[in-house]
């Protein structure tokens, strides 16, 4: 169980969100570019620090403005997949997946066995020794997921998990991703720009507008709110007054430019 209340001053508005995600539940975050979706993920995984609020995961306080608790990102044990996957370009597939285990000082032989098993489960065994620069979008996504899941995280954060996967492979990848999340049995938050992701991956859907939770419910409920301009353009065929522009296929964080500390 993850519960989040986080406040942070962004460039144009104050991000102030409250929500919780149960074990085995998948929450999908939607909203316009710059609404603060990726920032929410960064605040939870510890890459950014909230100005205030409280974040608890499985009974452990990760951040508390009142109690002055701020667990560093490296000890939060949260799997965070970035939109561009951020695979380490100077390492092979194996080394990428082994990275977290090496940081945890796991014995060498155990790393080799665990990583091999994870790669097998992800159908990546053939690519073990390949440099990540030579992988396709779908393969990169699987390596990034393997790299996170091999550490048995207590929470999974996925930022546009299918954005860099080519269109034809997306449906299959989406099904595969859904199964992996189900099997992991942990809370999961997905940021997406595609209604299909929201409907097929999400148990619940939050609409974020200017740093606030504007709607929270089942995907069907929230996507049914056609009176909302964003939802209308996001889900429905009806033409909206607020045109929605899809994000570029490649690129990094969707957060506003000031969402990273210098």
């Amino acid at each position, binding site marked *: 169980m993850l519960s989040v209340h986080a406040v942070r001053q962004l460039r144009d508005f104050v991000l102030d969100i409250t929500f919780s995600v149960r074990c085995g539940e998948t929450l999908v975050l939607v909203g316009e570019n710059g609404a603060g979706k990726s920032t929410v993920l960064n605040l939870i995984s510890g*890459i950014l620090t909230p100005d205030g609020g409280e974040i608890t995961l499985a009974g452990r306080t990760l951040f508390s403005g009142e109690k002055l608790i701020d667990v560093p990102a490296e000890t939060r044990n949260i799997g965070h997949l970035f939109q561009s996957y*951020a695979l380490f*370009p100077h390492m092979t597939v194996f080394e990428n997946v082994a990275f*977290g285990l090496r940081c945890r000082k796991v014995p060498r032989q155990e790393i080799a066995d665990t990583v091999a098993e994870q790669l097998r489960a992800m159908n990546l065994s053939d690519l073990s020794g390949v440099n990540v620069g030579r992988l396709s979008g779908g393969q990169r996504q699987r390596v990034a997921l393997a790299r996170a899941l091999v550490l048995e995280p207590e929470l999974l954060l996925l930022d546009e998990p299918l954005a860099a996967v080519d269109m034809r492979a997306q449906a299959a990848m989406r099904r595969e991703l859904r199964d992996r999340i189900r099997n992991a049995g942990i809370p999961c938050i997905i940021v997406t720009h595609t209604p299909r992701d929201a409907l097929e991956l999400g148990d619940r859907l939050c609409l974020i507008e200017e740093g606030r939770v504007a709607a929270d419910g089942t995907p069907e409920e929230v996507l049914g709110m056609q009176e909302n301009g964003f939802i209308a353009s996001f889900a429905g065929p009806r033409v909206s007054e607020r045109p929605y522009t899809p994000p570029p296929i490649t690129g*990094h964080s969707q957060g506003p430019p000031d969402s*990273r500390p210098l």
Partner: protein
Amino acid sequence: MLRHAGRARFWRAPLTLLLTVLLALFLLFVTLPVASLFLRISPEAFFRSLADPVVLDALVLSLATATVSTVIVVLFGTPLALVNARCDYRGREIVDTLTDLPIVLPPAVAGIALLMAFGRRGVVGQYLDGSGIPVAFTTVAVILAQVFVASPFYIRQARASFEAIDRLYEDAARTLGASPTTVALRITIPLAWSGLVSGAILSFARALGEFGATIMFAGNFQGRTQTMPLAIYTTMQGDLTAAISLAIVLVVISFAVIAAVQIVTRRNI
């Protein structure tokens, strides 16, 4: 080349000619002096003078001190460059300006400044000398002078290389459980590697060529402080062959440095 005698075309040929001449003159100006070194000495004389104690001492001392000073610059400069590339703190601009200072400071000024700091009567030197650690006019002074003048070449390059790395990789490494030290050692430094190596090579080259600050602060004692540039200056007044031989060695090293930097930077693009 000139197919139609249009107005623009008419001027193109003389312009091309002019540029070619300018380029040729400039290249000649750079290469002629270097080539003259090789023309003034026979290969036999060159190899014979390499056995000359003055030449040999200078060669060994130069390579040793430049290596030591490069190691010092890398050890101190890498963390400094990393912090300045990644952390925003009060006074960072001042630190940046100070680290760049030796580039614009005339070597003679660096020499006298080092002497005022570490000389026998210097601000720090008087205490060092009192505790039996003389610095000025020793090999240590040679190294200090080289570190002083060569450090900006490495630090600037290192900082630029660190800044060019997408922070996303570091963020990802942290969420995977890497401590800040592990992030630096396993992600940031490996990704910046080619830039760091070329910076270190440039710094080594600058240290090897250091003359002004060394002669003022370390003196000119054969075997102890007489590096190759100092030996060239000294032998030139008597044994020109030895001076030219040393110069040729430095030319060869300079070419090797340029080639090394190009190979290192090209491989990782």
